[in-house]
């Protein structure tokens, strides 16, 4: 599994989606108030959440 070479699309799939969502959050919270403050913060927080998710999901986690 780990020796298979991934294409650029596979390498950057999650990072590109994350990049777009975080940008939407950063700009959305600037352009609108109210609900968008929460939505914007949540979208930007995806950068933090993705890190936690990637670690919990576990490639590289010690095998039990």
């Amino acid at each position, binding site marked *: 599994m780990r020796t298979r070479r991934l294409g650029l699309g596979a390498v950057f799939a999650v990072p590109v989606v994350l990049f777009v969502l975080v940008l939407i959050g950063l700009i959305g919270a600037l352009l609108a108030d109210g609900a968008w403050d929460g939505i914007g*913060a949540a979208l930007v927080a995806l950068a933090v959440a993705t890190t936690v998710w990637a670690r919990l999901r576990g490639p590289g986690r010690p095998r039990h």
Partner: protein
Amino acid sequence: MKPSTLRAWSWVHTWSSLVSTVFLLMLCVTGLPLVFSHELDHLLLDEAWAPADPDGPRLSLDQVLETALARHPGDVPAFMSFDEDRPVVNVTSRAPDAPAGSFNFQPIDQTSGEAAPSVAGHPVMEFVLQLHTDMFLGLGGMLFLGLMGLFLVAAVVSGVVLYAPFMRRLPFGTVRVEKAVRTRWLDYHNLLGIVTVAWVLVVGLTGVVNTLATPILAYWKDTALRELVATRQAPAAVGEWASLDAAVERAKVALPGKTLQFVAFPGTDYTTDHHYAVVFHGDTPLTKHLTTPALIDIRTGELAAVAPVPWYVKALSLSQPLHFGDYGGMGLKIVWALLDLMTIVILGSGLYLWVARRRQGR
């Protein structure tokens, strides 16, 4: 990617980071409390206060200005701003021979003329802010930190390019915890680096724009405001100025429906030597960050112009909230702080990886 191309990108990543890491670490560490500066100022400066005569008549702006200047004889006014939740007018003035950036700041109770306690600018926060802005080195320090911001952008871009060859055989998010410490930190560096790209680029680039505030405003004055001062002689002395209250009222007529934010006096970045700049902002989420100044002739009190605000001044205005993270409530501030901490880990691990590789190379 050809090995020579990879080496070139690797060189860019290593050196753009090494040159800037110490300063970027300083910016991240000082930036962390600054994200919460409003809350921290509130906490540090907490003091029960009520206006002397809450329902009584308010002093005019001219009287407030006179009162403030009487307490610092010889000072020239620089700015006047208005608290939103208490009847307090803030007067910023400076002695003509004071060093650049040295101001006297006086919150004044508009119901009595007495001094009111500050609700912003605790000395500790001011120190942190100054370190973050220009390291106490004035314009040169600001521009230098802007250059460090450009190195940061180079490091992020080259880091993204290098991410691909490193991750070709690893699913997203892999951290090889069973491998050597260095490998583990490389994986963390890659993971944290790639998930923070959007935020770091936005905060980095808007930070760079903010370091250019002084030249941007100077250019605006030299171009857009040039015609207003083309035929002027010597600036009027403070005693010869037209009524400030009348100037503000005149400006309000010219810009109906907007909210008064502050007044800039001659000699500051925001106006000419011959005009009050009465500065307003809009009321929508976006336009409350965008200012529009009405320039009032300081001798006659006549409206000289509603100054055009070109795209680069608007870019500067929008760069401030996008850098500070103070535009989306407490939730966004907390996310800002978390991403700031993640950036510190990226910088630290990058430095560690460089040191570890050099040791190994010996």
